[in-house]
C-alpha cells in the first residue's frame, strides 16, 4: 500500500480532479467570488464600488414585478433618466409576483437588498420597517411639497408606519368589484347585482338554468377573501377591521365577521360557485373565459382583470356584454366603502449607499408626467395623482376608468386588502382558515377563534 504513494501518476490524476471538485463546490455553495460575468449580480452591485469609474457614479439597482407594457414603460423612463444623469445609473431588475415576495424579504433579512424595491405597503412594509431595513422618506417629502402634493392624499396611508412615510407611489390605483355577463342577465331577465338580494336572486335563477352563478378561484385563496372582506365591510363598516389592524385582542370576534362568513357558507350551500372552484388558479386567468363563454354569470375580482378582458377578449368587451358594478350593498350606511389600493410603492433600503440619489430617481421617474399619460391611455389605469379627470375622458377605455375613479374617489374610505394590512404570518393563516370555511372543513366560529389565537401568539 505504502509504495503506491510514490507513484506520480496517481497524483497527476488526483490533484486536478480535487481542485476541480473544490472549485465546483465553491460555485455551488454560492461563494463564487471569482465570477467575472458581465451581468450585474443582483443586489451586490450597489454595495460594491464599481471598477473603472469616471468621477463618482452611483450605481443603483431597482427590483420590480411589473410585466409587459408597464415594464417597458419603466425601462424607457429609466433609460431617459440615466442619459440625463451622468452621476446616477439605475438598473431595473424584474421578478415574478409570487417568488418576489420571498426574494425581497430574504434579501432584506440577509442584508444584501437592492437600493430601491417594489412593495405593496401595509403589513409587510411595516415588518421591514420594524427590522430597520427601510429609509424614512418623510423629510425628503416635506422638503418638496410640490412633489408630495401632486398625489392624491389617500395614497400615503399604506406607505405610512407610525406616522412616517416609507414609500412613494409607483402604479395605478386598483379596486375590487363585481363583473357580470350582461347578456346572461338580459336573457334571464335579471336585475344587475347591485344589492345582495339581487345577487341572491341571480344565483338562484342561473343555478336553475344550469349556469354557474359565480366564478371563484379557490386555489389562490385571496379571491375568497374578496368576498369575506367586502361582506364584512358591507355589514359592519370599516371599523371592524380597523380594530384587527391595531391588533386589539379578541377583535376577530366582531359579529360582522361571523355573519360575513355565514353569508359565504350560504352561497356555498346554494351551489353559487362553479363546480371545481377549489382547484381554479387566479394566476392562470382561468376564470375570465368562464364569464366570456357564459358558463358563469359573475365574478368578484380586481380592476386589473379588466385589462385581461380587454386584451384577450376584445370582442366581448366591445359588444358591451361585460357588466361591472360595485360590490352589492347590504346595509345602506356602508354601501359605498371600497376595497382596493391607491397604489403600490417604491421604497429605499437602509443598506443603500446613496439614498439621496435613489430619491432623485424616484422623484423624476416614478409616476412622472410621461408615466401618468401612459398609464391612463395605454394601460387603462388610474394613476393616484390629482386633476386627471380631463385626461381620463380622452382615454380609449374611458368608461371603465371614469367609473372606477368615481367609486374610489367617492368612497368614504378605501380599505386596503386584508392580507396587506396583516403581517405575512397572520395573512397566510387567515387565507388558510378562509379556504377551510369555504369548503366547510371549519365553521365561521372556528375561524374567529383560530385567528384570535394566532393574533395573540404573533410576535409583537
Amino acid at each position, binding site marked *: 500500500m505504502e509504495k503506491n504513494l510514490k507513484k506520480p501518476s496517481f497524483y497527476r490524476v488526483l490533484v486536478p480532479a480535487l481542485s476541480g471538485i473544490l472549485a465546483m463546490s465553491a460555485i455551488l455553495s454560492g461563494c463564487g467570488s471569482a465570477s467575472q460575468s458581465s451581468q450585474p449580480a443582483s443586489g451586490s452591485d450597489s454595495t460594491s464600488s464599481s471598477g473603472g469609474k469616471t468621477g463618482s457614479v452611483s450605481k443603483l439597482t431597482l427590483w420590480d414585478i411589473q410585466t409587459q407594457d408597464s415594464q417597458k414603460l419603466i425601462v424607457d423612463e429609466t433609460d431617459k433618466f440615466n442619459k440625463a444623469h451622468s452621476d446616477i445609473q439605475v438598473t431595473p431588475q424584474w421578478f415574478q409576483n409570487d417568488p418576489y415576495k420571498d426574494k425581497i424579504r430574504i434579501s432584506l433579512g440577509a442584508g444584501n437588498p437592492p437600493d430601491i424595491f417594489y412593495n405593496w405597503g401595509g403589513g409587510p412594509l411595516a415588518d421591514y420597517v*420594524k427590522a430597520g431595513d427601510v429609509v424614512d422618506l418623510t423629510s425628503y417629502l416635506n422638503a418638496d411639497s410640490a412633489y408630495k402634493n401632486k398625489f392624491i392624499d389617500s395614497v400615503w396611508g399604506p406607505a405610512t408606519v407610525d406616522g412616517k412615510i416609507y414609500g412613494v407611489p409607483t402604479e395605478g390605483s386598483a379596486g375590487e368589484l363585481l363583473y357580470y355577463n350582461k347578456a346572461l342577465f338580459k336573457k334571464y331577465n335579471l336585475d344587475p347585482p347591485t344589492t345582495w338580494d339581487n345577487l341572491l336572486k341571480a344565483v338562484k335563477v342561473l343555478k336553475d338554468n344550469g349556469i354557474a352563478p359565480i366564478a371563484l378561484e379557490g386555489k389562490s385563496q385571496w379571491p375568497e377573501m374578496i368576498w369575506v372582506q367586502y361582506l364584512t365591510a358591507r355589514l359592519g363598516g370599516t371599523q371592524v377591521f380597523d380594530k384587527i389592524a391595531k391588533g386589539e385582542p379578541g377583535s376577530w370576534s366582531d359579529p360582522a365577521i361571523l355573519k360575513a362568513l355565514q353569508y359565504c357558507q350560504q352561497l356555498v350551500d346554494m351551489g353559487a360557485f362553479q363546480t*371545481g372552484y377549489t*382547484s381554479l388558479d387566479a394566476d392562470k386567468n382561468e376564470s375570465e373565459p368562464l364569464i366570456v363563454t357564459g358558463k358563469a354569470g359573475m365574478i368578484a375580482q380586481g380592476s386589473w382583470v379588466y385589462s385581461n378582458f380587454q386584451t384577450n377578449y376584445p370582442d366581448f368587451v366591445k359588444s358591451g356584454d361585460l357588466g361591472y358594478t360595485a360590490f352589492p350593498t347590504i346595509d345602506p350606511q356602508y354601501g359605498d366603502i371600497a376595497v382596493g389600493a391607491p397604489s403600490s410603492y417604491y421604497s429605499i433600503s437602509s443598506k443603500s449607499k446613496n439614498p439621496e440619489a435613489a430619491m432623485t430617481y424616484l422623484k423624476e421617474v416614478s409616476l412622472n408626467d410621461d408615466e401618468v399619460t401612459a398609464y391612463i391611455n395605454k394601460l387603462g389605469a388610474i394613476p393616484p395623482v390629482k386633476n386627471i379627470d380631463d385626461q381620463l375622458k380622452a382615454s380609449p377605455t374611458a368608461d371603465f376608468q371614469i367609473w372606477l375613479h368615481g367609486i374610489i374617489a367617492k368612497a368614504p374610505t378605501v380599505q386596503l386588502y386584508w392580507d396587506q394590512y396583516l403581517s405575512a*404570518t397572520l395573512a397566510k393563516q387567515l387565507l388558510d382558515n378562509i379556504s377551510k370555511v369555504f369548503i366547510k*372543513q371549519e365553521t365561521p366560529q372556528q375561524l374567529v377563534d383560530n385567528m384570535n389565537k394566532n393574533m395573540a401568539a404573533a410576535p409583537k
Partner: protein
Amino acid sequence: MLFKRLNLKLFLLLVPALVFFFAFIIYPVFDAVYTSFFQSDGLSKPVWVGFANWTSELSSPTIYHALGLTLLVMVLSWAVQTPLSLVIGLFLSRESRFTTVLSIFYFTPLLFSAAALGIAWSYILNPNFGLVQAVITNILHLHYVADLLGNTHAVLFTLIVIIAWEFIPFHTLLYQSGARAIPVSLYEAAQLDGVTSWTRLWHITIPQLKNTIVTSSVIMLTGSLTYFDIIFVLTNGGPGDSSDVIALEMYKTAFQQYQFGPGSTIAVTMTVFGLLLSLVLVKTTGFSRMESQMEGA
C-alpha cells in the same frame, strides 16, 4: 487498525465525497436543529426561545393532520407502486425488440421536471376546460363534473395516482435490472423439475429480488415522506388542508408564513422520522447483513 486501513491515499479519495456530504447534508441538518430553537422571521434578529417551537409544533393538530396524510400517502404509494413496478419490471426484463421500444416510451416521465408534470396534469384535470372533463362530456356523454383536485375526498387519491405514474418507471427500472441479474441456471433447474410458472415466480424470482424490493421500498417510503413538488404545484395543500402533507406544511410554515423556527422544527422531525424509517427497514429485512442471494452460498 483503523489508521492502517485509512492511509493517505484512501483518505484523499474520500475527501470530495466528504466535502459534499458535510456541505449539503450534515451542515444543513445541524443548522435546522439550531434554528428550531429560535423565533426567526427572516428579517429581524432571531430570538432564542428554547423549546417553545418544539412544544407548540408537537402539540399542534395541524402537524398531526399533516403526518396522518403523509403516512397515508406513504402506505398507499407503496401498495400501488410496488406490485405494478414489479410486474412491469419482470415483463420488460425479457429480451425482445418489442420490450426495448416500449421501455424507451415508458421511461419518458422520468425525464421531465416534476413542476412541469404538475402543470401539465393541472391542465389535464381542469374541471372546466380539461382533457378528462372533455372525455366525460363529449365521448362518454355524461353529465358529471370530475373535480378530481377540488374534491376534499378525491384529491389525495388523485395525487397518489399521479405520483405513482411519475415514479413507477424508476422502480420498474430497478426491478428490470434486478430480474436480469438472476442466474438463468436457477430457472433451468426449475424447468427440469417441471414446476409451474407461478411457483417459479414465488420461489425463485421474488426471493432473488429481495434486495431489490428492499432498496426500492426504502426509496419509495422515504421519498413519499418528503414528497413535495407535484402536490405544491397542483393543490398547494388544498382544498382547505385535504392534501397538506408534512413537507408542504414545512414549506408553508417557513416560506409562506415566514416562521423559520417552527419550520425548522418540522424539518428536523421529518429528518429523524426518515432516518428511523430507513434504519428499521434495513435492519428488519436483513438487508444490512448483505446475505448472498446466490446459489450454493
